[in-house]
C-alpha cells in the first residue's frame, strides 16, 4: 500500500479550479518530484497534503488514514508530514535553536534539553552547529533554508514536502541545500518535491510527475520523462527549459 495517496483531488480558489482531479501515490522511501510551469498547482498540492489548504473533492491518505476533510486532527497529521517553503519562513524573533526546538517542546512534549540535543545533532550533521545561537536575518539564504529543513526534521516527520526550496536562493547557494536533500534521499526519507531544478530531479527521484493546469499530464521514471516523454506538453515544457540552459 502506498504511504501517501492522493485520490482525485479537486481544489478551487473561488472560481479558479487549481487542482482538477490529481491522482498520485508515493511509496515509503520513495522520492517523487513534481515539475511543471508556474501556476500549474505544484505548491497548492503540497499545501493541501499538509492541510494548510482545504480540498473540495477527493481524498488524501497518509499511511492508509484519511487526512483531508472533516474530523481530522491536523496538528497530529502535521507531526508526521514536514514541509519546507520557498521563502524559508523562519521565525525572525527567535534564534536558530529556538526556531528548531519550539515545535518539539510544545507539541511532542519533548523536554527542553532533549529538544536541544536533537537540534544540535541535526545542526551538526548539516554543518550549522556554530549558527545555533544566531538569528535568521543574519544567515545567508542557503543557511536559512537548511535551518528550515532542520526545523521540519526535528519533528521526526515520516514524509517531507519540499516546496521549491531553492527558488529564492542565489545560484551559488543552491548546492548546499540540495546536498541535504540528497542526503535525506539516501537515508530513505519519503519525499515529495516541487522543483525547477531539473538536473537534480533527474538524479534524485524515483518518479517524476509533470503537472499541467491542475492535472498530472505525465508521470514516470526520470530516465524516461527527461529523454523520451510521451506527451507533447511535457516535451514542450522540457524544450523551453533546455532553451533557457537550465537542463
Amino acid at each position: 500500500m502506498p504511504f501517501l495517496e492522493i485520490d482525485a483531488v479537486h481544489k478551487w480558489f473561488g472560481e479558479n479550479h487549481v487542482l482538477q482531479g490529481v491522482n498520485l501515490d508515493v511509496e515509503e522511501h520513495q522520492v517523487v518530484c513534481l515539475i511543471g510551469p508556474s501556476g500549474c498547482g505544484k505548491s497548492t498540492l503540497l499545501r493541501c497534503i499538509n492541510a494548510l489548504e482545504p480540498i473540495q473533492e477527493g481524498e488524501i491518505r497518509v499511511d492508509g488514514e484519511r487526512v483531508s476533510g472533516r474530523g481530522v486532527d491536523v496538528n497530529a497529521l502535521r507531526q508526521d508530514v514536514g514541509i519546507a517553503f520557498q521563502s524559508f519562513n523562519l521565525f525572525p524573533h527567535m534564534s536558530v535553536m529556538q526556531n528548531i526546538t519550539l515545535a518539539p517542546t510544545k507539541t511532542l512534549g519533548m523536554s527542553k534539553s532533549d529538544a536541544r540535543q536533537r537540534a544540535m545533532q541535526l545542526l551538526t550533521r548539516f554543518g550549522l552547529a556554530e549558527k545555533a545561537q544566531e538569528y535568521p536575518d543574519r544567515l545567508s539564504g542557503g543557511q536559512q533554508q537548511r535551518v528550515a529543513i532542520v526545523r521540519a526534521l526535528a519533528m521526526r516527520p515520516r514524509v517531507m514536502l519540499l516546496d521549491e526550496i531553492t527558488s529564492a536562493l542565489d545560484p551559488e547557494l543552491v548546492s548546499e541545500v540540495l546536498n541535504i536533500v540528497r542526503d535525506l534521499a539516501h537515508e530513505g526519507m519519503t519525499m515529495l518535491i516541487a522543483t525547477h531544478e531539473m538536473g537534480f530531479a533527474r538524479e534524485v527521484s524515483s518518479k517524476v510527475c509533470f503537472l499541467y493546469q491542475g492535472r498530472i499530464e505525465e508521470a514516470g521514471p526520470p530516465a524516461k520523462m527527461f529523454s523520451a516523454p510521451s506527451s507533447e506538453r511535457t516535451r514542450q515544457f522540457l524544450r523551453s527549459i533546455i532553451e533557457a540552459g537550465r537542463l
Partner: protein
Amino acid sequence: MTATTASSNAPGSRRARSRVETNLRGALIALLVAVVLEIGFVAAIIGFNSSLSHHAPGYSKCPPTSYTIPQPAQATNRTTVTADTVPNVPGLAVVPPKSTNIVVHVDCGVVGAGLTAAHIIEVLLALAGLVAPAFGLLAVLRALRSRRLVSEQRFSDARIAAEDSRDAVWYVVGFGLAMVVVTFVAVLFAGSDGAVRSALWNWKYPLRSRNALLKAFLWNVGLFFAAEAIVLVWALLIAVVRQLPGKPTRPIRWLAIAYTDVFRGVPAIIVIYLVCLGLPLGKVAPFTHLGGNPRVFWLGVLALTMVYGAYVAEVYRAGIESIHWSQAAAARSLGLSQWQTYRYVIIPQAVRRIIPPLLNDCVALQKDTALVGFVGLIEVLSEANLLDSHYFNLTPVTFAAVLFLIPTIPLTRYVDRLIKREQLRTQAH
C-alpha cells in the same frame, strides 16, 4: 563630462557657467537674509533679557515679595460645607480656606544665579546666531571662486566650488529658520514688559509650592501605572478576540468591534465624567466602599482603561495583521495549534513591531491622567489650579507641565535604545 576640457562655447561649459551664476545670486541673497535675521535675533534676545529683570508694571522698586490685606472676619451667616454634608458626591470636597486674608504676591523678576544663567544662555545663543551670516559669507566667497575658475576654463573645479557654495547656503537656511523660531518665542515672552513670561513662570512659586505639586503628581503617576498595566492586557485580549476565525465567534467579535468604535469615538473627558460621576450617582458603582480620592482614583483608572483599551487594541490589531500569513503557515505546518501560533509566533513579532505606536499611546495616557482632576481627584493639575487662584500666577501649571515631561522624555529615549539593540541583535547589518 567630455566638455570639461572644451572651449567656453561647448554645451558643458555653458552648463557650468549657468549654475555658477545662479549660485552667486543665491549666495548673495542668503548672506543678506542671514545678516538681517541675526540683527532681529539679537534684538529679540536683548528684549527678552531686559524683561527678565523687570518687575511687575506699576512698581518702581521691588516691594516685599508678598503682603497681606486684612479682611474683616465674618463669623456669622456662614455655613460650613464639608465633604460630610454631601456624601457620595466626589468633586464636592471643599478645600478649607488657608487664610481669611487676601495675599498679594509681587513678581520681582529673576535675580541672582537664575539671572546669571539666563545671561550665559543668551550670549551663547547670540554667538550661535552668528553662524548663519558666517555661512552666508562663505557661500559668497565660494561662488566668487567658482566664477574665477570658470574664467580659467577649469569647469570641473568650478562646478565643485559652486556645489560647496550651495552647501553653505543650506546651512544659512537651516540656522536661519531656527533663528526665526527662537526670535518669535523670545518676542512673545518678552512682550508687554515680560508680563507673559512672568505670568507663566516665576521662580518664586515653584520653590514655594513644589512639595504640594509633587505630592499631587503621585496621583497621576499612580493612575498611569494602574491604567497602563491593565490596558496592555485588556487591549491585547480585545485585539485577539477581533481576530478569532469562523462564524461561531461572530457575536463576541462584533461586541469587541462595537467596544472599540464607541470608546475610541467618545472624548476621553466625557467617558471620565460618565464613569467617575455617573457610576457613584447610580449607587450601584464599584468601589463604593472607598471614599474620597481613592474612589475617584479607581473610577479614573476604569475610565482611562476603557478609553485607552480601545486605542491600544487597534494598535495591537495593526501589529497582528502586519505579520505575513506565511509565518502562521510555517507555525501551523510544524503542528502548533492556532493558539500556540498566536502565543509564540504572531504576538511576539507583532508586539516588537508596534512598540513605537504603543509608546505613543502610553505617553498620551500619562498626559490624560490630568483629566481625572476634573471629576474631583486632587491630582497635579487641580492642585496647580488651586495654587494659581491663590497666587494669581500660572507658574504652578507650568511646573505641572514640566513634571509631565520628566518621565516621558527619558522613557521615549530608553525605548528607542531598546529597539536599536533588538535590531542589532536580530538583523543583518
